[in-house]
């Protein structure tokens, strides 16, 4: 009973820390995205609140908090309230299986405790994929229950897009799963120890998963509804897509969920293809008990690198047309991902122990 209490307290504090860090990162990202985007477009971005606009997320949060919460006439009130929660919770819950540091087990008051991963479940990848799909329900519900044409179109687009691109995400991951022989994200990131030539994106033997990584990246951009695949919220066509009718904190939930999804996808590609918390070359990793410091550092660097890539793509690319998006997903990415699975499995059979 005492042990269970300790365990619960430890896990809850861990969840609190991870949630806090993620939400703070979301707040930082809203500013960072606007800054990066505006710098790439020869603008300045937010400059008014605080020095160089660094307090803009605080101002945005306060503004959203005090906004009137409007439920449009004719909207399904229950579904309308449920949708933002159904989007945000799966986006945050995925972080439970992400390893942020070394796979250590420490004993706190006689209770075994893994400090750098909330829960090392053996189907971690499937767990993340499953919850990403549940997030789509929130988007579809939000689009449908708003009683607005734009929202409905956005929701429908999101549904169709998610189905076609989630398949590619899954198939791109299969190569990594074949190589590591595990669905646990902790095992996958531990298997990539010792330099960037052991990361699955570059590991020469049996087969580098770089193609799978590119497929995964494109598909995850589509899955998080980011430019150039932001058709569910296409501003120029659908006002704001599925959250046209939302305001105040409900809108903020959608906003948070979008950024949390971005962070989650970046964490996933870091863990699956870029060695998780491992340093790119072994001498950059602190020895022994201090490995967690460099571990968290390198993990953060990689995740922010991917997030920067998201912003970079957004600044560069225009939005795809809907048929182009579907054609690209089904006719280009899917065959490539399938081919990658075939080649990887054959080569993994030929070189079993590398």
């Amino acid at each position, binding site marked *: 009973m005492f042990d269970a209490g300790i365990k619960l307290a430890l896990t809850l504090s861990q969840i609190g820390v991870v949630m806090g860090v993620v939400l703070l990162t979301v707040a930082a990202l809203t500013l960072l995205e606007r800054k990066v985007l505006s*710098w790439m477009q*020869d*603008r300045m971005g937010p*400059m008014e609140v605080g020095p160089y606009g660094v307090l803009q997320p605080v101002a945005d949060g306060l503004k959203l908090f005090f906004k009137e919460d409007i439920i449009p006439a004719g909207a399904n009130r229950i579904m309308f309230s449920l949708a933002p929660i159904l989007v945000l919770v799966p986006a945050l819950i995925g972080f439970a299986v992400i390893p942020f540091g070394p796979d250590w087990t420490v004993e706190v008051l006689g209770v075994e405790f893994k400090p750098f991963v909330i829960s090392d479940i053996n189907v971690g990848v499937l767990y993340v994929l499953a919850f990403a799909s549940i997030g789509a329900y929130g988007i579809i519900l939000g689009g449908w229950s708003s009683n607005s044409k734009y929202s409905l179109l956005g929701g429908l687009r999101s549904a169709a897009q998610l189905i076609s691109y989630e398949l590619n995400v899954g198939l791109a991951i299969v190569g990594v799963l074949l190589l590591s022989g595990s669905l646990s994200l902790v095992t996958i990131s531990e298997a990539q120890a010792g330099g960037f030539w052991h990361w699955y994106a570059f590991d020469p033997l049996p087969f580098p998963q770089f193609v799978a990584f590119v497929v995964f990246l494109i598909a995850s951009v589509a899955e998080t509804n980011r430019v150039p695949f932001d058709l569910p919220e296409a501003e120029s066509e659908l006002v704001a897509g599925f959250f046209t009718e939302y305001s105040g904190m409900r809108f903020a939930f959608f906003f948070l969920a979008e950024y949390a999804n971005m962070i989650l996808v970046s964490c996933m590609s870091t863990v699956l293809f870029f060695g998780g918390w491992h340093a790119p070359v072994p001498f950059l990793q602190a020895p022994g008990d201090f490995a967690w410091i460099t571990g968290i550092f390198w993990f953060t660097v990689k995740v922010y690198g991917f997030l920067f890539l998201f912003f970079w*793509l957004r600044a*560069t*690319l225009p939005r795809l047309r809907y048929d182009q998006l579907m054609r690209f997903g089904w006719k280009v990415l899917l065959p490539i991902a399938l081919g990658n699975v075939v080649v990887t499995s054959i080569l993994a059979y030929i070189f079993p122990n590398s």
Partner: protein
Amino acid sequence: MTFKKWIKSLIFFEILMGMKETMKHFLNYRPITLEYPHVKKSLPDNYRGMLGLLRYDDGTEKCVGCDLCEAACPSRVIRVVSAEVPGEPTKRYAKDYDMDMTRCLFCGLCVQACPVDALGMSQEFEWAVYDKRHLQLNKQQLLAIGDRAFPEREKRLEFQHPNVAYFNVSFKDIPEKEC
């Protein structure tokens, strides 16, 4: 050629070129933004801003109530009610001079039409108001705009010629006319 194109599409060549371009702008960060309320743009001299009524140096109004501005105005902004100057039957002035600035398109035709240079376009443009009625200006407001926009009442160049200068001065000291 087709093989080259195929390779290019395989490695997302165009997208990479585009990303190179955006990264170039990111690294050489030279914003073209003018932070407007803090930094104000210097306006050209012939900027057509808010209209104002002008006075002579001694403080009398230039306007003689001739209605030419009203006739010139394409959007019917101006309403002039002309009247005799009390006690001076030869002189006229504008008893009422109203402008509905919500309709004004700042073409400057009234300024050109004015024979006595009584109208001027200032450099003011920050005239956003919460009530539309605040933009329906009367004579006092227009004179105030003119006073603060043109503290030195220089004659326009075309009105400095002595042949036309007759209208452009106070009635008190009429200059000698050159033949």
